[in-house]
């Protein structure tokens, strides 16, 4: 098996006085979709924010593509190829859809190993607009006027503009209609299949998340309590009891 793209070892994070993550270790291999599940306050979002550099770990290592990124600034981590689509989308609402997307490629301007030319950027923009046709329709509209689902697509599109190798997705289905959520999830699978993107996914709807994931980790009060292939987790009685609830979809 090939080397992990992202490897986290013995990570500890304090959030104010709260010990938010305790000795967390996990890894994501290229081309995988890995799902993080757990209750509210288990530390899932904290973990993603720590990977993308928004929160500093107090100890432990985060290795991305062979390099330790645990002390880097968020914008440097994006430049390395690890993009984070935050919870709640956080699009730049007064700016137009097109501007939002262009800003996605901001970190790739100028020199650097992953720098791109103006033509490449235009090309990327075109590709994203093709991938999400709604965004093309609305590319001159202010991002804040989009509906929740459209904003989620914009947030993902914006992250893709940085040509990431790893996408961190935080609650992409939150507050979205079932139909839209399904569409978003379909896109995630497509991204992996067609672009070879690696995805680390946090989602409340554990069933849906595990269905598209290759592997999963269960986080409880800041610790990894269970890990394994998705199928095994879906079948696990404890997991079913705690996170899956009664299945009405299937």
């Amino acid at each position, binding site marked *: 098996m090939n080397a992990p793209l992202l490897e986290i070892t013995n990570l500890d994070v304090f959030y104010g006085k709260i010990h938010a993550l305790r000795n967390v270790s996990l890894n994501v291999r290229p081309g995988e979709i890995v799902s993080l*599940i757990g*209750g*509210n*306050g288990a530390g899932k979002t904290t973990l993603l924010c720590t990977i993308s550099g928004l929160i500093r770990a107090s100890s432990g290592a985060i290795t991305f593509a062979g390099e330790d990124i645990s002390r880097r600034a968020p914008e440097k981590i994006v430049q390395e190829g690890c993009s984070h689509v935050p919870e709640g989308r956080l699009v730049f609402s007064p700016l137009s859809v097109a501007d939002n997307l262009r800003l996605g490629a901001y970190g790739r301007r100028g020199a650097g190993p992953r720098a791109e030319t103006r033509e490449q950027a235009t090309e990327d923009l075109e590709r994203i607009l093709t991938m999400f046709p709604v965004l093309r329709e609305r590319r001159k509209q202010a991002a804040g006027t989009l*509906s*929740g*689902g*459209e904003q989620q697509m914009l947030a993902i599109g914006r992250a893709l503009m940085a040509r990431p190798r790893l996408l961190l997705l935080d*609650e992409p289905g*939150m*507050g*979205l*209609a*079932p*139909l*839209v*959520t*399904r*569409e978003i*999830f379909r896109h995630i699978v497509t991204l992996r299949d067609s672009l070879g993107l690696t995805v680390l996914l946090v989602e*409340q*709807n*554990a*069933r*849906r998340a595990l*269905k*598209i994931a290759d592997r999963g980790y269960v986080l409880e009060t800041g610790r990894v309590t269970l890990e394994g292939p998705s199928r095994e987790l879906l079948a696990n009685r404890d997991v079913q*009891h*705690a*996170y*899956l*609830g*009664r299945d*009405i*979809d*299937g």
Partner: protein
Amino acid sequence: MAEPLLRCTDVGVRFGGLQALAGVDLSALPGEITAVIGPNGAGKTTLINAISGMVQAQRGTFRLGADDITFAPAHERSRLGLVRTFQNLEIFSNMTVLENVMTGCHARLRVPAWASLLRTRASRAMEKTIRDEALEVLDFVGLFELAKYQAKDLPFGKQRLLELARALGARPRLLLLDEPAAGLNMSETQVLADLILAVREHFRLGIVLVEHDMDLVMRISDQVMVLCFGQVISRGTPAQVQRDPEVIAAYLGDDED
């Protein structure tokens, strides 16, 4: 059939060039749970905003029981017993849990502001009453133990419950719940569903519910209304709506995965 508690007729809301709601009728019966579902951007939150008075509708009338509330400001509607919760939690983070619920009780006991200023006997008595009632509500939703904590220190799921408790503090006749299950995992959602049913039982109120979680909607609602692009495309019992091909096409999607 009982007299509707809330009756909205021909509601129309327009933002600039965008027609957010057009010709929507909604009535909610006492003791019933009415769910409003629909795709994002369909106008569900706008509808709740229009009912609660946060957005002034350009067209339509609103009646709560015998009162015409079409032109009443938001706080007035709340005082008349029409109380809502918010999709993005709007708890009062700089207060304790207890104070949050006491704030919910705000409108019910009227003592002039100057009385509070001078801490008159009446105002102290009122404080005590409010406090006891708030604790009762907290006990009901299971947050009694956490009464003294700062609301912002509560985990997300508990904050959802707090928002519900705060609304109940106002002793509504009609409760508007805006996506109460958003951000909750499935087991938490089940706990919530039971709680909403218990609330209906205990407080004998009508509930209008906007929700995406079909599990919750199907399980607890008596009636479902489906909105799409600002218009009603379907109404009926949960089972009827779930089978409606138009609803499947616009909202539910075919269950392939």
